């Protein structure tokens, strides 16, 4: 999380007073307001300066690419790595279609026959990396990996990552538009989530490619659609909302790192009760009594949630989908 690396946020309150949240010390007097300010999407204060913690650059990084014959095996492998107490510097999952799209774009040499591939990185001192790579290789093999490649040098490591890092532009190459989702689920439910998304592809008649920050259970399904076709756009939005609400049912959250903005206001109505949303609105007013900072974002009004609740009943079957509702 960003918060863990922020020491101080300097800026102004909504009333124009200069203010520091946090300090260069490891804690500050009073309530710890940094967590509430970091990630608040500009709702609580105006930030003018940020002090972050720096860490020494690791001496060495190496990356494993592991292929799995089924999504379930890849999902289990993620859980097994974490359960062994290993904390990889990166642990990413791409499904077969995403891998094919990325491979076509960067030619990283990915295994196209795999149902999913995992990218698993270790960094630190050469001794630490050697120990961790050995441990991860063992767990991945025991979890049923059908092929394991370990980067031998920095150039190869960057090649291994190139497909993952270009997953978004590569997807742009196979579809006029895509909508990137961002939710988090408990890691053990990754495989189940991918099956659910497959079922949604049939339901909404749209394709979806999947790339996950698997180590954190943070999903980035990319729904492919054509924004020039209003009907596709409508189905895409319903598809996205379905992914978010399924994530909630699996014990997750509607946004892992990208935030709420305005796009996910409706999903906030599902994640939080009315009392919780009212408490959020009270927090907003505590910082910004006149509600002049980014009004209308992050926390939906009670009225909006009431409206969404009614709409929800006819999920996917709006009578007048072209009418502006909010």
């Amino acid at each position: 999380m960003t918060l863990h690396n922020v020491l101080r946020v300097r800026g102004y309150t909504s009333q124009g007073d200069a203010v520091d949240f946090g300090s260069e010390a490891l804690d500050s007097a009073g309530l710890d307001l940094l967590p509430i300010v970091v990630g608040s999407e500009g709702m609580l204060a105006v930030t003018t300066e940020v002090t972050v913690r720096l860490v020494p650059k690791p001496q060495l990084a190496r990356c494993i690419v592991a292929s799995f014959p089924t999504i379930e095996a890849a999902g289990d492998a993620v859980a097994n790595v974490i359960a062994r107490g290993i904390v990889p510097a990166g642990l990413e999952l791409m499904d077969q279609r995403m891998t094919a799209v990325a491979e076509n774009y960067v030619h990283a040499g990915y295994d196209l026959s795999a149902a999913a591939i995992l990218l698993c990185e270790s960094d630190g001192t050469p001794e630490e990396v050697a120990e961790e790579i050995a441990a991860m290789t063992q767990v991945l093999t025991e979890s049923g990996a059908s092929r394991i490649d370990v980067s031998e040098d920095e150039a190869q490591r960057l090649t291994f990552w190139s497909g993952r890092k270009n997953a978004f532009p590569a997807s742009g190459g196979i579809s006029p538009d895509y909508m990137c989702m961002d939710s988090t689920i408990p890691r053990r439910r990754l495989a189940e989530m991918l099956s659910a998304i497959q079922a949604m592809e049939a339901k909404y008649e749209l394709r979806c490619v999947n790339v996950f920050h698997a180590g954190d259970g943070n999903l980035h399904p990319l729904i492919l659609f054509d924004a020039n076709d209003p009907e596709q756009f409508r189905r895409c939005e319903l598809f996205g909302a379905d992914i978010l609400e399924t994530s909630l049912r699996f014990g997750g959250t509607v946004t892992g790192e990208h935030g709420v903005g305005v796009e996910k206001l409706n999903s906030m109505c599902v994640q939080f009760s009315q009392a919780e949303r009212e408490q959020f609105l009270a927090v907003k007013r505590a910082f910004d009594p006149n509600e002049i900072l980014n009004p209308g974002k992050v926390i939906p009004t009670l009225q909006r949630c009431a409206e969404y609740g009614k709409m929800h009943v006819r999920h996917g079957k709006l009578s007048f989908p072209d009418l502006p509702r909010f």
Partner: protein
Amino acid sequence: MPPPDAAVTRLIDQIRSARPRGAVLDIVGGGTKGFFGEPPRGEPLRLQELAGISSYEPSELVVTARAGTPLRELEQALADKGQCLPFEPPRFRSGGTVGGMVAAGLAGPSRAAVGSLRDYVLGATLLNGRGEVLTFGGQVMKNVAGYDVSRMLAGSWGVLGVICEVSLKVMASRVSTATICFELDERRALADLARWAGLPLPVNASAWHEGELRVRLSGARAAVRSACEKLGGTLLEAEAAARWWESVRDHTHPFFGGDRLLRVSVPATASPLGFPGQQFIEWGGAQRWWRTPAPVAEVRDAAARAGGHATVVRGDKSGGAFTPVSEPLMRIHRALKTAFDPERIFNVGRLYADL
């Protein structure tokens, strides 16, 4: 959210009847931290009944426990699976609870290396002053839905509401640990710690006291071994070292025993503060405990000039146990108190007189 159970219902009844009875409530877990901060006052709101580990998924590195769960019980459950709370919350006396740990927000020797208690909070269920049961955050590692209320509860000393249940990220216990020690004066010790902080070394804790610097290395076996060789110093016997770090963590070390104890939190690189008396430095220089006859105001001024603050743990609290915050921040504090606890019934005055 499932309907609240009997223990929560009793708490809600006591909360809702407090204001009409003219009562304020003192939220009590194990009652082990009453000496820290401003004195508790009011009618006890007891959380012992609200106890137990609600869920624990070792492979997810997440545990959820109710507030009254004894910290000892939680740590034992984690140890049974080879896991731990890496921030080493202090246990000043036995009987402390999970809720009290979060409300105090304190961390032990490893804090500078692994992060604070707040960094391990994933979610919390809170009872606000209206007796509403509210859940913020969750049980997943990354979550930015809504304001991060659950992490703000860490170190809030109960002034915003009653923590009923909390989800924490846990970690595997370290594979390998070694403690090395050096004879160094304060200035040299701080300089070495600052230099080491910029290097990729597995430094997990440090403590300087009376001319001796102890450094705990922790991590992969090979990394600890190579760091020991690189740094030199005298290797301490493992069992004795572990016991010694526990005594620092829990303040059973004799240094922490007197009737005056100040905690000074400054940037790690701050110059020696030079008060008369004895000092115990942790966190690479960022946490400096003082037993000093210097007036509290003087210590606070020096801490502020260094970019930090000072807490009176024991001693003269006439200027407040905690350093007052700036007026714009205090306005936000008061407004947040009103937002969560409009009738001002929870732990009134425990953090600041105004809250």
